[in-house]
């Protein structure tokens, strides 16, 4: 799939933002007043910024409100509804922390639940797509949720938990890649099933339907070099999980270490997200002799 920067930014940033909200909802870090305001602003900024970034992907953002209507069936719609609900719940919760130094625990749990649900909904947008076998697997939600939890924990300065979660994230990430590499084969979709011509023999594209490009090729067919992908995987794993986990556990905690860990993590996750899209092969590529 085409790794669109707006979507990569959106999923990464909003994941971090909602992750932070989960922790804040649960009462970590236990801050109030202006510190709480700073944390809340970061969470909202990330989640909201991500959401704004995602509208860049829409060709008709002025109609975006319509996207709230189909929550019964559409994960994208659910995600929209949930993110707004999360923000709506988070706002009074954060205001109480900031202005009244008070934590409304019940509301906090609701915020955490909603934020988690939002992240889950985001992940399901991809995981539900059967036509992209690499995504259509439980590791996709696991990855997104762990990313939110770990990143959130990192931002929430929950050093110990964050380190553990980062390691878990790394583990799931590796499994997602390894599994992902064979998902296409497992899905059983081939040029033969795509054309129904398998009973006649092996199928190979002779002539594409058009020599010009089209939307499908631009959007759905993206080829990443193997070496390039391998390098990026290493970077993503190291920067996104291992190094921050190491920094957190080995170095004395402090703003500098945390800051470096967060930035490394962000960079690693962005690389991972880029791969998440770029490596995902859509079955439509089979009709174009590419996958």
């Amino acid at each position, binding site marked *: *799939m085409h790794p669109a920067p707006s979507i990569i930014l959106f999923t990464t940033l909003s994941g971090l933002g909602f992750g932070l909200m989960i922790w804040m909802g649960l009462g970590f870090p236990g801050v109030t007043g202006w510190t709480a305001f700073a944390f809340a602003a970061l969470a909202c900024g990330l989640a909201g910024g991500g959401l704004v970034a995602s509208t860049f*992907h*829409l*060709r*008709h*953002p002025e*109609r*975006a409100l*319509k*996207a*709230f*209507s*189909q929550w*019964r*069936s*559409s*994960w*994208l*719609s659910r995600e*929209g509804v949930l993110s707004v609900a999360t923000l709506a719940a988070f706002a009074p919760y954060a205001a109480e922390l900031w202005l009244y130094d008070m934590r409304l625990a019940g509301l906090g749990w609701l915020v955490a639940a909603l934020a988690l649900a939002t992240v889950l909904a985001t992940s399901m*947008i991809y995981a*539900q*797509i*059967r*036509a*992209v076998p690499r995504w259509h697997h439980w590791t996709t939600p696991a990855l997104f949720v762990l990313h939110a939890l770990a990143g959130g924990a990192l931002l929430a300065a929950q050093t110990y938990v964050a380190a553990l979660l980062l390691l878990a994230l790394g583990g799931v990430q590796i499994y997602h890649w390894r599994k992902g590499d064979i998902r296409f084969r497992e*899905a*059983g*979709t081939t*040029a033969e*099933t*795509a*054309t*129904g*011509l398998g*009973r*006649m*023999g*092996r*199928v*190979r*594209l*002779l*002539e*594409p*339907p*058009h020599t*010009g*490009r*089209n*939307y*499908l090729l*631009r*959007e*759905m067919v993206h080829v990443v070099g193997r070496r390039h992908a391998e390098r990026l995987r290493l970077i993503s794993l190291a920067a996104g999980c291992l190094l921050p986990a190491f920094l957190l556990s080995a170095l004395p905690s402090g703003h500098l270490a945390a800051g470096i860990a967060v930035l490394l993590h962000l960079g690693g996750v962005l690389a991972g997200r880029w791969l998440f899209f770029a490596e995902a092969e*859509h*079955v*439509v590529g089979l*009709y*174009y002799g590419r996958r």
Partner: protein
Amino acid sequence: MTSLPEKTERALGLVIDLDTCVGCHACVVACKGWNTEQYGAPLSDMDAYGAAPEGSFLNRIHTFEVTPDAGPVAVVHFPKSCLHCTDAPCVTVCPTGASYKRVEDGIVLVNESDCIGCGLCAWACPYGAREMDAAEGVMKKCTLCVDRIYNDNLPEEDRVPACVRTCPAGARHFGDLADPESAVSQLVAARDGMDLMPEQGTAPVNKYLPPRPKADQAPDGEIDVLAPLLEPVAEPGGFLGWLDRALGRL
């Protein structure tokens, strides 16, 4: 409108005969022409006379080579447009309800005034049957010519999709695949009609008729029982003797 109907009254769709399609692209261009003038926004062409022309089309013809275990390689022309799936994933993913499947005939449509151009439906479609129009920013797809098939302004015989009407080889058939008595259903039954990517679970309405077995798939040594080799004329005097007698018999 993103939920799929439990059941549609009819299941209108196309049956495409891969044994007959000569790959002429007539249906592609007829579709482009009709749908540029009718349903929704016109189908645009970007950089139309330049280095990288890119337009929206709702129907495209691919050409595949098929290599059997033995015998010569075959070539198959392969038209592809929306298959109007019964379990259409493109519909259920749509956040706005712009994508929907009609209850009365099962046609899958995009209500362009509701479409935000998110592109998710195109991702969800395994067949590549949806293309976002680059100029208008809305999702385009085959409408099964919903604005032709019921259109009172057209003569009765023209109330078929533009691609079907134009196909010179008669490789495209239109009808109700929910009705086992319909001509298309009969054709599917007789010719072993098939689904594309059944494993994707989309339950397409459109069916494909596979190419008939090729006569050249039989090794050359093996002779068709119906076509025994020609024996030389056996009469005395050889060919001229035979000729003389044969003329006498006339």
